[in-house]
């Protein structure tokens, strides 16, 4: 046993001593290579794709936030009573090289979302560990909307009393009021100060009294579409008016001030972020002394750090073999949970020969869902999904049964695929050149597709490029088939960004991610968006999904869940089914018993 530990320690040093790919690239930059040449490579190493909001700008990973250059930024000195001795600090090894930004209204990368989730609150929140349910957070309860005489919709939130802001370098701790909430939501709606401003179009925010906020929505929205905008996700997080005004929008990117169970203590660039318990937290004192987030981009390092006990929780590898391996260890547990990111095909119907629906259908009949699942080790990490909108996580998606009933489940049928190609006059096959990201989740799916299409005579030449180059190239419409992997918070966002004609890449009026050039369901999307009856709304979204599959412009392969490893000494304090913050969730209830 002791020897094993020693061996692991040795192996770990070996691996850490060796430069990771990211290190090589970063060092390249330090050595004075042209930034323009290395930029795309560097950006490739960011795990997350660009921020989902249309028109929103995600700042580059190395954005020169004040203080980022200095090795350590220390927060405010310890406040109040020292925490009880038995409380532990939870060590979390995050799959990232560094933070991007801790301004919640820009945070998009997984590691940023994780930290923001611990520091901030919102009016309402997704239940910890279960993103299918809302509960009140800063608001006392979730209100019902009222219709005004002129056809607008009003949501009135009553705030919890006695919620205290963390003390910051330039602000004392003070009580949260309606002023903060209005200020914060207005920041979220401002396109210069938020990546998610588009979500707040047509909304106005006003203070009724210190503990009451009124939000007017025009045109009215269903709760399914409205509530996420004021929940603990993207623009819904509430920032402190005094802290932001005193520090400025730049400084809060590396020194967030919130109301959450953990407050910011220090940040060391490319190394760690330290959070400490906020003993004034309105749900009670945390049972942890703090959370230390360590940036460990090498998966083997994270795994060994977990095994050696150096880390209590680590970001895992999206592969079921990894889950098995961790679960074989007596003291460790792998957690697999949503929300899953859907991997799906977009077939460009404006491009020859894919403009022929028979060719697109042939491609879909060549696809073996099982093979695409298997390269990730199959369930539980990767699971099948039957419409681009995942029915498992949100209303509006199709279940397997519904897809089969509508005759749009497809399924591998090579004879039929070859016959369709022959009917289209392409019996001898043809060839395509596709660009893929070097990231595993993309490259593996493209390589399986390449093999599948080879069997029906379609030759695919694959060019592997770095991640951000792929994102740029597919937006320039180079790929006749685009595999995209994404989570979007609701069906409206999925359908609007990927299948509304406004979002068509290059040629659309507001180019976004409509890679298929599809324009047949605009009316369904728009009708559903303003439908305030949730059931009717869901029905419209389902119709849209069926149409997408009938026209063979979009095809879901699977969704990939979040994978984490933890020591059994860790108790999150809640069951983990799904999390929009893309980590298990560390709250005031979380404990470590060492």
């Amino acid at each position: 046993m002791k020897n094993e530990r020693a061996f692991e320690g040795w192996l770990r040093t070996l691996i850490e001593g060796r430069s990771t790919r990211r290190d090589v690239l970063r060092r390249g930059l330090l050595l004075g290579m042209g930034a323009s040449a290395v930029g795309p490579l560097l950006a490739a190493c960011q795990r997350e794709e660009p921020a989902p909001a249309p028109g929103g700008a995600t700042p580059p990973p190395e954005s020169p936030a004040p203080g980022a250059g200095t090795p350590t930024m220390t927060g405010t000195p310890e406040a109040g009573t020292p925490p009880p001795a038995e409380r532990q600090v939870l060590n979390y090894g995050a799959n990232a090289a560094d933070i991007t930004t801790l301004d919640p209204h820009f945070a998009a990368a997984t590691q940023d979302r994780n930290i923001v989730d611990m520091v901030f609150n919102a009016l309402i929140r997704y239940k910890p560990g279960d993103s299918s349910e809302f509960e009140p957070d800063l608001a006392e309860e979730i209100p019902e909307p009222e219709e005004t005489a002129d056809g607008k919709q009003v949501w009135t939130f009553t705030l919890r009393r006695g919620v205290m802001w963390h003390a910051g370098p330039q602000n004392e701790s003070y009580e949260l009021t309606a002023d903060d909430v209005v200020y914060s939501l207005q920041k979220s709606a401002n396109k210069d100060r938020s990546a998610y401003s588009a979500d707040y179009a047509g909304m106005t925010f006003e203070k009724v009294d210190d503990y009451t906020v009124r939000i007017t929505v025009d045109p009215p929205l269903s709760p399914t579409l409205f509530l996420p905008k004021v929940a603990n996700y993207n623009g819904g997080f509430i920032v402190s008016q005094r802290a932001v005004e005193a520090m400025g929008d730049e400084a809060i990117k590396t020194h967030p001030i919130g109301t959450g169970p953990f407050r910011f203590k220090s940040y060391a660039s490319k190394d760690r972020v330290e959070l400490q318990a906020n003993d004034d937290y309105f749900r009670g004192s945390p049972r942890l002394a703090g959370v230390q987030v360590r940036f460990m981009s090498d998966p083997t390092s994270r795994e060994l750090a977990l095994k050696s006990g150096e880390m209590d929780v680590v970001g895992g590898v999206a592969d079921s073999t990894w889950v098995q391996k961790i679960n074989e260890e007596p003291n460790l547990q792998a957690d697999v949970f949503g929300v899953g990111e859907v991997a799906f095909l977009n077939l460009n119907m404006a491009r020859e020969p894919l403009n022929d629906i028979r060719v697109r259908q042939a491609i879909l009949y060549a696809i073996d869902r099982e093979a695409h699942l298997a390269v990730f080790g199959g369930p539980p990490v990767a699971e099948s999904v039957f419409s681009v909108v995942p029915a498992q996580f949100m209303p509006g998606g199709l279940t397997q049964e519904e897809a089969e009933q509508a005759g749009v489940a497809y399924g591998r049928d090579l004879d039929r695929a070859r016959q369709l190609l022959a009917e289209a006059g392409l019996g001898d096959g043809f060839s395509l050149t596709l660009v893929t990201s070097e990231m595993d989740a993309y490259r593996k799916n493209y390589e399986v597709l390449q093999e599948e299409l080879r069997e029906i005579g379609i030759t695919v030449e694959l060019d592997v490029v770095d991640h951000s180059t792929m994102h740029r190239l597919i937006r320039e419409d180079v790929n006749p088939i685009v595999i995209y992997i994404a989570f979007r918070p609701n069906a409206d966002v999925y359908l609007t960004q990927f299948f509304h004609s406004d979002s068509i890449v290059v040629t659309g009026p507001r180019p976004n991610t409509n890679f298929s050039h599809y324009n047949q369901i605009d009316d369904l999307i728009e009708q559903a968006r303003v439908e305030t009856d949730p059931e009717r709304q869901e029905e419209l979204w389902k119709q849209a999904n069926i149409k997408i599959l009938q026209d063979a412009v979009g095809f879901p392969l699977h969704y990939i869940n979040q994978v984490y490893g933890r020591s059994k000494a860790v108790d999150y304090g809640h069951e983990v089914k799904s999390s929009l913050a893309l980590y298990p969730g560390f709250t005031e209830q979380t404990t470590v018993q060492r």
Partner: protein
Amino acid sequence: MMAVARELPVAGVRERRWRGVQAFARNRTALVGLVMVALLLLIAVAAPVFAPHSPIEQSTIHRLEPPSREYPFGRDDFGRDILSRVIYGTRIALLVGLLSVALGGILGTAMGVVAAFRGGRTEAWLMRLTDVLLAFPDLITGLLILAVLGPGLWKMIIAIALTITPRFSRIAHGPALSIKRRDFVEAARAIGVGDARILFRHILPNIVGELLVLASLWTASAIRLEASLSFIGLGVRPPTPTWGQMIRDGTVHLTNAPWFSLFPGLALLLTILAFNLVGDGLRDALDPKTQA
């Protein structure tokens, strides 16, 4: 440098070369290296004969299977045969190694010799450019060039060739400079022999030894560079197997499927060793100090 310390007419070069071959043949480790290189070439050329399975055919239900009789090196994360992929990977390794060294060697030698021959501003420009390129570690230069060119097999060969070029121009420059001033070159020039003839007849034969040593050592480095660049993910188009890419894909499974990275890693190790052994042997054989 030492090989040209003496003034050597052409007949002397031939004689010395023959003595070099004899010295090489007496060096056992160098011979082992040579046999290994020959074997690698054979495997690369006849890969389809040696490979028991298709290197690209996927069978995802068999992914990450451990080594077995049927699949002695196990299977990768797409269920492909690792042995066959290692065998086919030899092709890319040698193609990149040999071609980039040939390209870089020709270009670099030309630069060095022309600089020595022309002197003046040409020499200053070419050699300062060499200095600048030499200032970067090889991987960084390769990375930089590849970042500009974009990924792909031929672009990678060009990137590695350009990385190697300054090494050759530096080595070719010195001896060429000293030979240029020797009496026999002056004599040849006096009887009206043209530049090109002097270059090919008198200068190149005298520095070919050093260049060969450099070429064999840099072939090993070029293969290592190819693996490093593929490891970063900027290599050859999939599904073409390359060792660097295989090692990279295996790192995620290092603790549960070590064979995935191990075998391509071993192949890489042996290949680099082979070229280094040959290079060392050549250097010893051509070094006048070590000759009897």
